[in-house]
């Protein structure tokens, strides 16, 4: 479950953790948009690099590395799928071009995972809910969202227990071909889903018995207030966005193969 650990909130005392979640969310959204905007390896790689200082300031390097390791498998799948499909259907002039294109897609995925991982690592679910609420999203939706986020680690733990229980009944998770491997996960997914549904029903009952939603107008103990560094981050994000839009429309980005010696 190392993949999930890379998204689990870590309560660390850092300047990034104390920032307004709305500013961080805006930053993540900008990164998301920019990542999708570019189709070339160089800018995507730069996007990958510019997030690293963020990780270091937040001192979540270990967890961040874990999320990177956890996404390695998906990254490899994306790489191989791109490689194969481009080779057979892409009509690219050379293998180097295919390689670069596949690598680009993989890096794009990694950048996306990276930005979300940093966001979730440094923003507690409560702060996130607060941010949504104070952005005038209906409370029911905010609550559903924060609950979903908060239950991810619980589900991850449960998945581990279920895996243990099925292994104890002789289920071999490793080995076999691709189809067999997917089939192997049925005995794990079904109890996981059934339990999640049961738990959500129970949660609804216990919430209602504790007078959830009795008061239409809610107040909060904490009120979010954007400070100078939050505005700074928003400014930086806007800057990244503007520069990226400019570059992607007016500047021709060289691809790596152009730097290769001509054959």
């Amino acid at each position, binding site marked *: 479950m190392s993949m999930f650990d890379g998204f689990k909130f870590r309560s660390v005392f850092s300047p990034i953790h104390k920032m307004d979640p709305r500013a961080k969310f805006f930053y993540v959204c900008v990164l998301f948009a920019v990542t999708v905007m570019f189709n070339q390896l160089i800018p995507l790689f730069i996007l990958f690099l510019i997030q690293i200082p963020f990780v270091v300031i937040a001192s979540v390097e270990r967890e961040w590395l874990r999320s990177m390791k956890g996404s390695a498998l998906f990254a490899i799948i994306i790489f191989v799928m791109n490689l194969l499909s481009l080779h057979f259907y892409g009509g690219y002039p050379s293998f180097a071009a295919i390689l670069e294109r596949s690598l680009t897609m993989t890096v794009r995925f990694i950048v996306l995972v990276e930005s979300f991982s940093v966001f979730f690592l440094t923003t507690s679910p409560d702060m996130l809910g607060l941010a949504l609420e104070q952005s005038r999203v209906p409370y029911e939706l905010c609550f559903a969202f924060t609950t979903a986020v908060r239950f991810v680690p619980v589900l991850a733990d*449960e998945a581990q*227990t*279920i895996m*243990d*229980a*099925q*292994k*104890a*009944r*002789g*289920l*071999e998770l490793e080995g076999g071909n691709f189809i067999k491997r997917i089939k192997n996960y*049925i*005995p794990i997914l*079904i*109890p996981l889903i*059934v*339990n999640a549904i*049961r738990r959500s029903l129970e949660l609804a009952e216990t919430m209602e018995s504790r007078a959830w939603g009795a008061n239409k107008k809610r107040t909060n103990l904490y009120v979010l207030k954007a400070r100078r560094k939050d505005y700074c981050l928003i400014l930086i994000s806007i800057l990244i966005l503007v520069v990226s839009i400019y570059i992607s429309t007016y500047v021709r980005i060289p691809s790596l193969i152009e730097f290769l010696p001509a054959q």
Partner: protein
Amino acid sequence: MIKVEDLYFTYPNGVEALRGVSLEIKNGEFVAIMGQNGAGKTTLVKHINGLLRPTMGRVLVDDVDTTKVSVATLARKVGFVFQNADHQLFCETVEEEISFALRNFGYEQKTVNERVDWALNLLDLTEYRKVSPFMLSGGERKRVALASVLAWDPKIVILDEPTIGQDSQQKERLRQFITQLNRQAKTVIIVTHDIEFVAECQPRVVLMAGGEIVGKGEAKNILTDRELVKEASVVLPEIARVFLGLEDLGFPRDVIDVYEAGRILLGRFGGSS
């Protein structure tokens, strides 16, 4: 024969769950592992079927080091019934649920059918054969989980908190059932908080606290030892509390069983049972 030698285990998050546990369980023994939450009971038994691998020390099952074989291989010998049946049920019918492990082990269809019939009968589930396990009550689901493990007839049976959520009638059936298994020379290990259940079954007791074994021996001796029980934060069985109070009047102090207590009291005060 299960041999646990100086076992240490630390979870990836840094929690030191076991600190130098050594234990020997002979074939055909009935052992209860007790202690408060977080004492390391479940962590210890998960080593016996290889779900957890020692950080230090080793665990041998019939002289085979558990780190040398897969969980699935060990599972043939060691049946492990998890605390929450909902963590393993996933098939459309009870019958399929019970045959799941048998198929994993590669039994022939004929044998699978025979074993399923046998297990259904054993746990009184025959009428639910074609019913979805999700439609059953909590106690019944627990029995399905138990049947699905006993179906392949493992030599060692580990039950994690078998009495949780069971009414008194089910508990009594469980007790009889465990006695029956034990009589068939199976090794039975239960992990439990249920001191009254243990007092009734009278297995060998292993008392754990803080990742270490603080006491082991006959239930009679362990569950009447005030100091030991206090160390493990376990409460004495009710009968033991009564008889420890009556000790000054010349009553034996090592009584934990209701029927034995009844006999002794009736013997002293006269009357018939």
